[in-house]
Structure formats: structure tokens, C-alpha cells
């Protein structure tokens, strides 16, 4: 069988890098959503404290913040599914690339100078 190890590994590495970038972006956005949620929850707690002294003024504001919190939670849940999908794609892209690179090395086929094994692993984040 004829191989184009350099060309194909370059292509698979590019896919892996794109998936890694997408997965990292999804992680960043997940972090942003967590921060936004925390800020809104803090804001709601403050408003709840103020409500003791002037309940009529604050009730509307609390309702608005509750709406925001609900919207962020919904977005966070939806984004989590997307994040899982991207993580699975990264895993598949990394697995295919890693297996191809190992095979090429075992068979003594030429590999790109910057071929690296396992760099598709992203830092796992606690959601």
C-alpha cells in the first residue's frame, strides 16, 4: 500500500488543532457563563438584603434578576451539551491522529517535523 504519511498526518493534525481550539473556546464560554451566573446570584442576594428595608422598590429588580438567572442557567445547560459534543470530537480526532502517528513511526514512514503525540488532551475543567 502507498502511504502519504506526511500529508495525511498534517491534515489529521490540522483537524485535531481545530477541534482543540473549539473545545477550549467552549471551555472559556462555559467559564464566562459560570462567572455571569455567580455575579447575578450575588446581585440577587444583595437585593434580597435590601428588600427587608424597602420591599416595594426591590421586588421588580429581584424578578428581573431571577429572569436573567433562569436564562443563564438554560444557556449553560445547552452549552454543556455542545461542550460534550466538542470534547467527543476532539477525543476522536486525537485518537485517529495518535494512532496514525504511532503507525507511521512504527513503520518508519516520514512524519511531519512538528508531529507531537497526545497534545490533543485538553485540561479538564470542573464545570
Amino acid at each position, binding site marked *: *500500500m*502507498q*502511504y*502519504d*504519511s506526511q*500529508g*495525511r*498526518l498534517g491534515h*489529521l493534525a490540522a*483537524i485535531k488543532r481545530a477541534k482543540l481550539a473549539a473545545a477550549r473556546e467552549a471551555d472559556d464560554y462555559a467559564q464566562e457563563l459560570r462567572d455571569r451566573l455567580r455575579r447575578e446570584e450575588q446581585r440577587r442576594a444583595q437585593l434580597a438584603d435590601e428588600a427587608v428595608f424597602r420591599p416595594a422598590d426591590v421586588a421588580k429588580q429581584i424578578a428581573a434578576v431571577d429572569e436573567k438567572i433562569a436564562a443563564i442557567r438554560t444557556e449553560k445547560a445547552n452549552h454543556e451539551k455542545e461542550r460534550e459534543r466538542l470534547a467527543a*470530537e476532539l*477525543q*476522536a*480526532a*486525537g*485518537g*485517529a491522529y495518535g*494512532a*496514525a502517528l*504511532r*503507525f*507511521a513511526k512504527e513503520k518508519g*514512514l516520514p512524519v511531519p517535523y512538528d508531529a507531537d503525540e497526545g497534545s490533543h488532551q485538553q485540561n479538564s475543567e470542573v464545570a
Partner: protein
Amino acid sequence: MLKSLKTTRGKAAKATAEAEAALEEIRQLRLRLLDQRDDLASRPLPLEHAVEAMEAALERQAEQAVADINMSGLMRPGGREPSLNLDAHDRASLAFAAARKDIAALLRERLEARYESGPEPLSREQKAQKLAALDDEILSAELAEEACIRELEVAGIAFMRRADADPRALLAADAEMAA
């Protein structure tokens, strides 16, 4: 103009769906081939081979049973009453050794019954030949899958490769795909 664009988009969507369906079909075919391979790999060797293996195993056990007996009590009794000092295990082992031909007949009957109701046996050579042929077919399916993914990529549609895709297909030159 707008209608023409819609028609073109519709055709592109249909082509994409057809390509994805074809890819899925290839993947299903590969899975069926892998099932066939598992089935083939687990086929037993012919009955004669199993009978020979059983007889050889019985013979080894019988030899071991006799070899474990301490004969020195008979050869150098030293004034005491000659004794073999057989415990229950020794006695059972010796009985087994003495009856090994009957035991072999019993086991052969059981083996024959298993072979009658079991999958078709294959000799080592037959199995190796059939496995090699199936492996070729599996590789062809892997190459067809990779070719399909490459065609989709050329059309601008990214389709994920399997993490356990065969590296030979992943690294194959485009010329191999046309073959």
C-alpha cells in the same frame, strides 16, 4: 434567481445527506465484517484435535499422579511394615490414572455431543486463510470509509473519523482510494 438558488441548495443538501448515508452504510458493513471475524476467530478446531488434546492432557495428569507417589517406603522399608502412605488425594489420583481410558471415552462422548450442536469446526490453516480474507475485506471497508470522508471534506463537509480508524486507511495516499 432565488428559486434557482433554492433548488441548488436543495440539491447540495440532498447530496450531503446521500454521502452521509453512504458513509453510515460503509460503517455498518464494517461492523458486520467485524462480527463475522469474531465468529470465525472463535470457531473450534476439528474434533480429532480436541480428542488428541484431551488424551494428551489425561496422559499428563496420569503420569503426574504416579510420579507423586513416594516409592521409597517399598524399596527401603527399614524394618517397618512397607507402606505407601497414601492420603485421599493420592488414592483419587491413582484411581484416576488407572481409569484414564474409561474417562477418555466419557470425555470423547461429551466432546462429540458438543461438536454436534456447536459451530462448524475449522482447521488452523482454514481459519488463518478465512481470517486473512476477512481482514482484507475489513481493510477495504476502512479505505472506502476514509475515501468517503475525504470526498466530503473536499466538498467542504467535515465528518468525524472514528478514533479507532485503521491507521493504514488514514495514511493511505489518495491513489489508494481510487483503487
